[in-house]
């Protein structure tokens, strides 16, 4: 029966409908309407998860309708074990981000609508199997995010929004060129057909570079990361959550789905370069994170470092590395979301993100401190949390690639422990000296609802990772087969 329903289309259409529906209500009801549509989307996603068979066909829930026939483009949807988890993350984190956005007082309706639009675009990226459509969604994400940063952001929001938009747009334009060539060569936009297609070697290198420009900026990899700290610091909490947890994953997803699966040989050629860039990202971003005085900026740089582990795992060319990369991405989505929410919780109360403005928060907000401890430990990769699994597997992949690479990457683990723990110490421990801190109140109900499920997922994934792994492992095996 499930086969008869175009589940992925419904999943994708629900937030779109929500986007329009929100404008039928006033600001007060908009929140509830938006949550309803986000919930509906999540319910549909759960149906997809329930119906997905990891051992089954490579792509499931496939739908295909001709669209622009002259160019061989179609409306083509389908998911595998890799994209399924990103879909799950999207539907879970969007309502969380919306709840964080309940603090927004101005133009609530537009705010909620934009988040639904954003969700629709992100879901589109992860569920589409047509390269043209993939590009459309990949770019479409920019419009709602541009408004979210620009309308509800901090003092430098104009500059941040413009830089975010133009920087990623520039990368995507190079990708567009590669998209043209791939559609021309294969005669259609079908991504599954491209996966087995033997592109001429020279051409494949150029294509790879086109995609690299886009994904490296999106991920972001060093040295293309400069838009990220700015965008994060200026974006409202909810925007930062989506940006870190979901938008960055589009880069990693693209690397696996397109660079690796469609252009395996070129990926092998460029693997050493990618490994080097990843190592630089891990070490450099960690060192920069140590020097930050702004909490949000610190978390942003830690994201760059974590994405370094992700690309390291992907391009180590090993099964362990790839699985590690997937785990890093999923874990980072949960943990970075929680960290940004945590910063938001403090910021809403005090209106400062400066680390030196805090100290002794644990005494005033014990529950908050305890919850955040879990996320901080997950961020530094403590065993038993989701962060450990991914980092460990990535390092294992790096070790199989080259011992020295693993050694340097492991230094990054130490550095991440130092900046996270140091941050925790400066903010939460010590005596309550600042009057600002003295007036803090512990978490409210809305904040519990946002943070506790995240904590459960982080711990659950750390203790029983195979639940997550078993779903994507067969799909990753297929990626490995092309890689050779």
């Amino acid at each position, binding site marked *: 029966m499930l086969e008869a329903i175009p589940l992925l289309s419904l999943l994708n259409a629900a937030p779109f409908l929500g986007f329009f529906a929100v404008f039928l209500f006033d600001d007060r009801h908009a929140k509830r309407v938006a949550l309803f549509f986000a919930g509906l989307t999540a319910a549909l996603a759960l149906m997809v998860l329930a119906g997905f068979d990891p051992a089954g066909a490579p792509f499931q829930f496939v739908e295909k309708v001709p669209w622009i026939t*002259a160019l061989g483009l179609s409306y083509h949807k389908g998911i595998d074990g890799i994209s399924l988890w990103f879909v799950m993350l999207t539907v879970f984190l969007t309502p969380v981000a919306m709840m964080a956005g309940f603090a927004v007082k101005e133009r609530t309706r537009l705010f909620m609508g934009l988040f639904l639009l954003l969700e629709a675009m992100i879901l589109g990226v992860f569920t589409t199997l047509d390269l043209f459509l993939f590009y459309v969604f990949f770019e479409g994400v920019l419009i709602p995010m*541009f*408004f979210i940063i620009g309308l509800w952001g901090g003092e430098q929001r104009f500059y941040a*929004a413009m830089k975010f938009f133009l920087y990623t747009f520039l990368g995507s334009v190079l990708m567009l*060129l590669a998209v*043209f060539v791939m559609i021309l060569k294969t005669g259609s936009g079908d991504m599954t057909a491209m996966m087995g297609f033997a592109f001429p070697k020279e051409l494949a290198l150029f294509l790879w570079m086109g995609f690299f420009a886009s994904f490296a900026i999106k991920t972001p990899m060093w040295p293309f990361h400069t838009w990220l700290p700015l965008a994060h610091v200026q974006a409202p909490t909810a925007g930062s959550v989506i940006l870190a947890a979901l938008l960055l994953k589009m880069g990693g997803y693209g690397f696996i789905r397109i660079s690796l699966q469609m252009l395996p040989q070129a990926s092998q050629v460029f693997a050493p370069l990618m490994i080097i860039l990843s190592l630089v990202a891990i070490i450099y971003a960690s060192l920069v994170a140590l020097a930050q005085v702004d909490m949000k900026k610190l978390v942003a740089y830690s994201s760059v470092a974590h994405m370094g582990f992700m690309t390291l795992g992907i391009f180590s060319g090993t099964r362990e590395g790839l699985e590690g990369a997937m785990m890093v991405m999923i874990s980072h989505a949960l943990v970075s979301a929680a960290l940004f929410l945590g910063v938001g919780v403090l910021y809403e109360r005090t209106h400062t993100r400066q680390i030196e403005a805090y100290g002794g928060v644990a005494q005033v907000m014990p529950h908050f401190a305890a919850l955040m401890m879990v996320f901080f430990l997950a961020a530094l990769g403590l065993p038993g949390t989701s962060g450990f699994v991914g980092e460990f597997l990535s390092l294992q992949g790096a070790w199989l690639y080259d011992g020295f690479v693993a050694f340097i990457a492991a230094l990054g683990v130490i550095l991440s422990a130092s900046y996270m723990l140091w941050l925790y110490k400066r903010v939460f421990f010590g005596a309550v000296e600042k009057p600002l801190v003295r007036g803090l109140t512990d978490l409210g109900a809305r904040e519990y609802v946002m943070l506790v499920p995240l904590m459960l997922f982080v711990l659950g994934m750390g203790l029983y990772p195979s639940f997550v792994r078993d779903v994507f492992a067969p799909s990753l095996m297929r990626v490995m087969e092309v890689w050779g």
Partner: protein
Amino acid sequence: MMESVSLIRPELFLALAALAFLLMSAWFQKAEGIIYGCAGVMVIAALWIACADGAGVLLNGMIAVDDFRRFVKVIILLSGAAALLFAPSFFKQDDPVDGAYGVLALFASLGMLGMVSATHLLSFYVSFELQNLALYILVAMRRDNRASSEAGVKYFVLGALASGVMVFGLSWLYGFAGSGSYAMIASAADHAQGLGLGVGMIFVLAGLAFKVSLVPFHMWTPDVYDGAAAPVTGFLTAAPKIAAMAVLGFLLLVPFGGLWVFWQGPLAALALLSMFWGALAGLLQTHIKRLMAYSAILNMGTLLLAVLARDGQSLLLYLCVYVMAALGVMGGVSLIRIKGQELERIEDCAGLGRVHPVLAGAMALCLFSLAAVPPMAGFLGKFMVFFAAVKADFTGLAALGLLASVLAAAFYLRVVKVIYFEAPKQEAASFEAQGLPARAAAAAVVLLALASSFLMIYPGPLLTWTASAAESLL
């Protein structure tokens, strides 16, 4: 003979209606009525042309009718009608409405239809000048406004020069082909007389490049766009650009198809210069109409890629989506009043997002479409044009064009930023757009914006229509 004249009945209707309205405007005081009447005539003619079929050459080989020409004529008329809708509410506020606006637009459109239909240098040039004369007057119509008069004079002097250059080229073509008919030129081009024809063709190309404002023939564009009244600028961004670009594409691909070696290089140079100069200079603009002028330059440059790639379908498709979005923006500009004055500076749009959310939203959609951000229709146009260019092995040119489009996105986004992110300024806080004419214009803007967003999702009919139109081209 009668059978073939029946093919141009809509044009005859348009010409008669133009004359009738000209007479009426002398006696009839309700100028608004005349303008709406003219818009109605254009829509009727457009629908008439759209529903007709059949092809043929008539009037002793002066004029032809086919699918390509039919499509171009329809979008010229529709865009002209849309620009006319913006006029009554605009003129009502500071100048008395003049019915001549509608009549002149009708004559200009008639000239454009003639340009597009022509199959002979003579009929082409006569229509070209009919269009030009009407446009010169339109630009200078606000007699008491210095900027408008200056723009009119500038347009006239430079336009006359361009016409002279073009006539010079036409005389070469006539001399070397021995006839003014396109068919004769085409067959001469395939034979020995390449060089002489090539020289003539370059001059004709220069004249047309002036019309579509390609760098380095673009100098008049920003001043004229800025000086003319906003609805006139709206008219200029759409109909004459469609006509001149379609003729340029048609002439190069069909009669001059054999002279490929002569025009390929110059055209690529024009394309690159226009795309980059349009994008770079656009970044520096402070006036919204000047910005739209540079946007036109950039987009016309991009369209040359479609001509280079010999792809009629993407040419037509891009023209459509560009004109829709540009008209939407210009419609918004002609609706917005700041303390009773016309909107000029971009910074005066600040806070529009709060004061007029619907109009601001529509303008933002159109700007995103111009910036070719998916999922807007502008992206479909850009995709088709650059895809065609890559397919025809102009990958380097396409890559440079895409880079220019990123620069261009920056200037469109700047307008969106001002509209939405900046708070309204105190002295410019009042926006006015009231009354029935204003509502009609606003409805047109919203429709254009919706079309700019939904055409991408359901492009089927437009694609089939442009495909069949392009088929009759080559």
